[in-house]
């Protein structure tokens, strides 16, 4: 028994010593700054002649990738770049943190849009919780489904690192691997870097092969989505079923040196094309062969790069570049990277009290001749300077993330839904008018306590797939038309669950059943989702109001107030509905009609004003000269009587 106690004490001491010795070691690891985390002050970029690493089993140290090994392993950027850079620090950055609750959402941005033509569904989705969007879990989208739907335009990380935490992604992780941050997708200066290939690999669920395949140093064949969860991809044994195609990687051996290192042309200033892959806008209505006629943002044309303004530190917290941006890290530099920060330096110098001086990048000071000051209080800079020129009807535009642009080759499909309209002028949170992109949400949902939550597309398809069948549905403006009868039948099938009644939201209206009749009504859930336009910035000469062209906005049919915003809806008979811009803006249409009409009398007012000033000056001159005459003669005149005669 004594021996038992002795062993117990010894064991306890060993555990205690272990705890004492390992705890500080862990802390040191966490706090240790890695080689690439800091900056030694030299502006040149270190040559990235790298060993490619891979971690085969979780918890084990990463191993070197041998390119001529059979089967060769795909390298992991988490571990290859992670040799010098702290991955966990980087993956809190803006591009990788939408799923994290703790992040400030900032002003609304472009959402992911879940589009399903069959159920006539368009749901704006964002993990950031912007007003008008729905969080993935609200609409039944797991991280795995988020990647499946939108991973094509994700840089990795974010949902890619948590998809295996839920059941529907759990069994796929052993096959597909972690969808880790693809550092090269932005920072590889090599022109062979192919984001379209990365998108293709992601759609095939080849997550762990994606970085290698898109980097230009390897060719990847196969499709992980065809493999059963039980398949061991690391063994590389060909499956019996020919339909199952395990991914296989073939490295370009010429890219490796004798030490099996690879040179990556890593850049800090990320090339514009890398940003464009996810962040560009195509204005519709121009033949694709005429695209060459379009201009880029004036800043790009002038030689700046996206990252000159949209900067970040090692933490990858991007500066979004709007006024009033709140950030956790380095907030002092942010105000100097807005329109005003560069172009009106003295304003922000007073406001921000920043040590970092604004007025960067040699930005020209705007002239703004003849623009009344009230415009600077009521409008954002972008109203006059950004986006496509306002037209009678806002332009239809497409973006890579919403319409899957940039997927070159055979997997390119021309998606037109949702119809994104721009520029649409709205009033932002600061009360300023701002140009925005707009989509009308359209979805089946449940309403409880006046709150509407979308129903997952699969549920609707399962319940009402036959009713909503689009095979014979006539097409109107890319939509398969939806009749009120179909809506009624579907709502009847969706039924009431837990006191929440089924509804359909489309075209700015909420449809619900009242004693069997379909009743459309206005509802906040049916309101359009808008997000601000930042780019493309037009040259000064193409700005609204340039050279005192007041009529650009103050005309009887000026698009900024009287443009016709199409209320996009699949519902039969609702196709031609439009809303005047002032209604979207929340402005008084009568006022703007009369105010703009008053501009016709401006020339008259100017003329009358000048004549009045002329007459007043003449009176002053005349009587002034008379007074001068009297003063001059006062020395000559002997008495007041003589003066009176004058």
């Amino acid at each position, binding site marked *: 028994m004594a021996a038992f106690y002795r062993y117990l004490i010894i064991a306890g001491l060993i555990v205690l010593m272990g705890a004492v010795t390992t705890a500080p070691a862990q802390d040191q690891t966490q706090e240790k700054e890695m080689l690439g985390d800091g900056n030694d002050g030299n502006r040149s970029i270190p040559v990235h002649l790298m060993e490619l690493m891979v971690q085969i089993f979780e918890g084990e140290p990463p191993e070197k990738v041998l390119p001529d090994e059979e089967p060769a392993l795909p390298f992991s950027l988490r571990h290859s770049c992670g040799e010098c850079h702290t991955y966990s620090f980087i993956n809190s950055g803006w591009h990788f943190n939408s799923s994290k609750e703790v992040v400030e959402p900032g002003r609304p941005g472009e959402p992911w849009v879940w589009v399903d033509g069959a159920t006539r569904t368009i749901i704006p989705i964002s993990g950031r919780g912007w007003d008008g969007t729905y969080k993935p879990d609200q609409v039944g989208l797991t991280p795995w489904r988020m990647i499946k739907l939108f991973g094509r335009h994700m840089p990795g990380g974010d949902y890619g690192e948590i998809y295996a935490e839920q059941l529907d992604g759990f069994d796929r992780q052993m096959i597909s691997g972690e969808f880790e941050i693809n550092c090269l997708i932005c920072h590889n200066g090599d022109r062979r870097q192919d984001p379209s290939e990365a998108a293709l690999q992601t759609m095939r669920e080849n997550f762990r092969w994606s970085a290698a395949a898109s980097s230009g140093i390897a060719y990847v064949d196969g499709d992980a989505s065809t493999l059963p969860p039980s398949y061991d991809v690391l063994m590389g044994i060909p499956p019996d079923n020919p339909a199952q195609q395990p991914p296989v990687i073939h490295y370009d051996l010429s890219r490796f040196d004798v030490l099996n290192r690879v040179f990556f042309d890593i850049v800090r200033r990320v090339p514009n094309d890398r940003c464009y892959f996810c962040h560009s806008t195509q204005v519709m209505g121009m033949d694709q062969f005429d695209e060459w006629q379009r201009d880029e943002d004036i800043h790009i044309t002038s030689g700046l790069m996206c990252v000159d303004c949209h900067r970040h530190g090692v933490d990858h917290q991007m500066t979004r570049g709007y006024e009033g941006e709140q950030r956790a890290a380095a907030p002092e530099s942010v105000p100097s990277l807005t329109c005003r920060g560069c172009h009106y330096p003295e304003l922000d110098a007073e406001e921000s009290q920043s040590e970092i001086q604004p007025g960067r990048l040699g930005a020209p000071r705007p002239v703004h001749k003849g623009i009344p000051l009230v415009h600077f209080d009521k409008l954002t800079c972008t109203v006059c300077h950004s986006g496509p020129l306002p037209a009678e009807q806002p332009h239809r535009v497409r973006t890579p993330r919403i319409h899957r642009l940039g997927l070159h080759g055979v997997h390119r499909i021309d998606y037109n839904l949702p119809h994104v309209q721009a520029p649409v002028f709205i009033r932002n949170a600061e009360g300023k008018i701002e140009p925005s992109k707009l989509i009308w949400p359209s979805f089946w949902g449940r309403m409880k306590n006046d709150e509407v939550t979308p129903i997952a597309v699969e549920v609707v398809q399962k319940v009402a797939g036959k009713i909503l069948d689009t095979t014979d549905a006539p097409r109107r403006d890319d939509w398969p038309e939806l009749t009120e009868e179909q809506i009624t039948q579907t709502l009847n099938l969706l039924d009431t669950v837990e006191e929440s009644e089924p509804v359909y939201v489309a075209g700015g209206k909420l449809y619900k059943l009242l004693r069997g009749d379909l009743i459309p009504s206005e509802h906040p859930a049916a309101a359009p989702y808008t997000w601000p336009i930042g780019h493309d910035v037009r040259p000064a000469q193409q700005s609204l109001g340039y050279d005192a062209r007041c009529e650009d906005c103050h005309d009887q049919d000026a698009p900024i107030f009287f443009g016709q915003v199409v209320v996009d809806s699949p519902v039969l008979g609702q196709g031609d509905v439009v809303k005047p811009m002032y209604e979207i803006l929340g402005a008084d249409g009568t006022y703007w009609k*009369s105010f703009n009409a008053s501009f016709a*009398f401006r020339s008259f007012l100017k003329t009358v004003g000048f004549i009045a*000033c002329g*007459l*007043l000056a003449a009176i*002053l001159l005349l009587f002034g000269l008379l007074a001068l005459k009297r003063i001059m003669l006062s020395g000559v005149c002997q008495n007041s009587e003589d003066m009176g005669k004058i």
Partner: protein
Amino acid sequence: MFRIMAIFGVSGAWVIACAGLFILKTKGADTADIFACLKNCRIKATLYIILFLSIFVLAVTGFWATIITGEPSTGYLLMLHCTAAVGFCFALPLSLIISAEKNRFILGDFSPGLRLVGVSKICFWIVTAAAIPLILSMILSMFPLFGPVGQEFLYQLHRFCALLLVVTGLIYLGFSQ
């Protein structure tokens, strides 16, 4: 700053004008009989009505925003302000032409018994002089000549000239005989 100046300036001018009227009445001086003037000359009457109405509308719409909200005039108030400005530009110079001769300085304007007359004449010429930058500042701001700094200067010039014109105009009315 301007808000405080406007409040004290306009109310002070009212007090001074009322005091002037009171002094003139108690002295038995021959104060201006507006109704008699209006009966004598219809054109003159119309001119004065237009002038006073426009000044009233301009002052209310202009100072309302400044004094009550503390912000520049916008919306329907601004539209009304601009509409009244046309009447003001039309009526003011003509009225001043009519009254200029009467307000010429003569010896004895500032003699002990007639100091108020002298003051009213000074006010008249200040009104005339202030009206020019008042009108010109807004007309020029409509041309593509001045950037934000210039626009700000013109706006401030307009405000202060308007205040000067209203204050001196009120005193002129109170002291004129």
